[in-house]
């Protein structure tokens, strides 16, 4: 079973709509006990790293998320749910989950409009089942002022151009994160969700 983490600062209802559309069976989860029963976890995200970390802290979910990721069970973090996998965010200097090596940085407002809002091209940089049935590059919907800079170059799974090339998707094992909003990226986003479901089900 897939659990969608439902917390105050997130947009779990939109992700739930997308999962329903692809026919996934899932449950909304918001307590450590519920999280621990799940094969796969999806952490949706909008807004700020601080509000997200605070919200997860309040529900006492930090430990359960960390245990899930460390044991390489399927995880999919979207936008802020992706960013907080890393050590620290420049956004308010917030310490994050520290599960992947790297930092979250702000786009340079001198060179690009911030936030980045709109459809941008993601080029897939290595083979992975998460890209099943998609072309080598596709368009996804982004809304972000910050981006991830992983310290290990092999983490990057997708790259996107906005002022410079940044890592728009990363993975290690079955732990995935996308900077773009899969739930708002039309059929391409729905396909990635379908692929994540297959990966999670294969883990059952």
């Amino acid at each position, binding site marked *: 079973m897939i659990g969608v983490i439902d917390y105050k600062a997130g947009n779990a209802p939109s992700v739930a709509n997308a999962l329903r559309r692809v026919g996934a069976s899932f449950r909304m989860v918001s307590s450590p006990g519920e999280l621990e029963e799940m094969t796969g976890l999806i952490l949706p995200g*909008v807004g700020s790293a601080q509000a997200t970390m605070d919200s997860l802290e309040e529900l006492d979910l930090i430990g359960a998320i960390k245990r899930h990721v460390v044991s390489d069970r399927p995880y999919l973090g979207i936008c802020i749910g992706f960013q907080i996998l890393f050590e620290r965010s420049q956004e308010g200097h917030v310490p994050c989950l520290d599960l992947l090596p790297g930092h979250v940085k702000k786009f340079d407002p001198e060179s690009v*409009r911030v*936030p980045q809002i709109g459809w941008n091209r993601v080029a897939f940089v290595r083979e992975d089942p998460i890209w099943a049935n998609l072309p080598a590059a596709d368009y996804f919907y982004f809304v972000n002022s910050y981006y991830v800079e992983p310290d290990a170059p092999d983490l990057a799974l997708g790259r996107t151009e906005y002022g410079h090339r940044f890592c728009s998707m990363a993975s290690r094992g079955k732990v995935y994160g996308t900077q773009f909003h899969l739930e708002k990226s039309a059929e391409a986003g729905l396909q990635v969700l379908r692929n994540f479901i297959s990966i999670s089900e294969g883990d059952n």
Partner: protein
Amino acid sequence: MLTKRLIACFDIRNGMVTKAHKFQDNIDIAKATDMAEKMYQDKIDEIIFFDITASSDRRKIDIDTVRAVAEKVFVPFTVGGGIKTLEDMTEVLKAGAEKISIDSMAVRNPDLIRQGAEAFGRQCVVLSMQVQKVGKSEKIPSGYEIFIDGARTATGLDALDWAKRGEGLGAGEICVNSIDCDGTHDGYDLEITGLIAENVNVPVIASGGAGVPAHIADAFGIPGVSAAIISSMLYSPRIARNYSVKEIKEELIGLGIAMRPY
């Protein structure tokens, strides 16, 4: 490379897409959910619903329609009109919309922009502004004034000042809606849209006046204009001809504009 966005805009009354002429003579075009789904299938980049009010109480936001659309449409979806408080914003976002657009209420209570940005992130807050050319003066240095309440009430605010102030308060996008151009099908007001785009760092949306794809190309020719709102040219029976999203995108791509492919 970030592509330019094509945003379909609909006025919604009682769950129906309607088209007014000079703020009256509303004719119903289609069910809001059906129209939204059709646009989604046609690969529109984004959808905005305005004045989405329920029949039982004209002032109440039609949350059921918001929810029904969010279940069928997997592109960003903005709701505007009728949002007066942080609670209204919360309700709309929890129903599945990505963003809220505030206009007259932001003028009445600018702190609403700040509250929304603080609670949900600035990306959720679109500041929509109705601008009219009034000529340059000491009070209105840009030559464009902000109007509210369906273009009926002048505010004495300079459009460029208001845009900058809105950005400072936390608006994540600014939608410049020209009262002069709206409904003319003669093209966007490029002057004020360009002036605002030059002076703010958040994405700017051109709105009001598009009649043919070339008008959209003109707006996208201005650096900093990230998106264009289209309405009549998609579905109004009161325009010379309607265009499909595909036709519009083909023409824009043909002109070398970066768009999400059809």
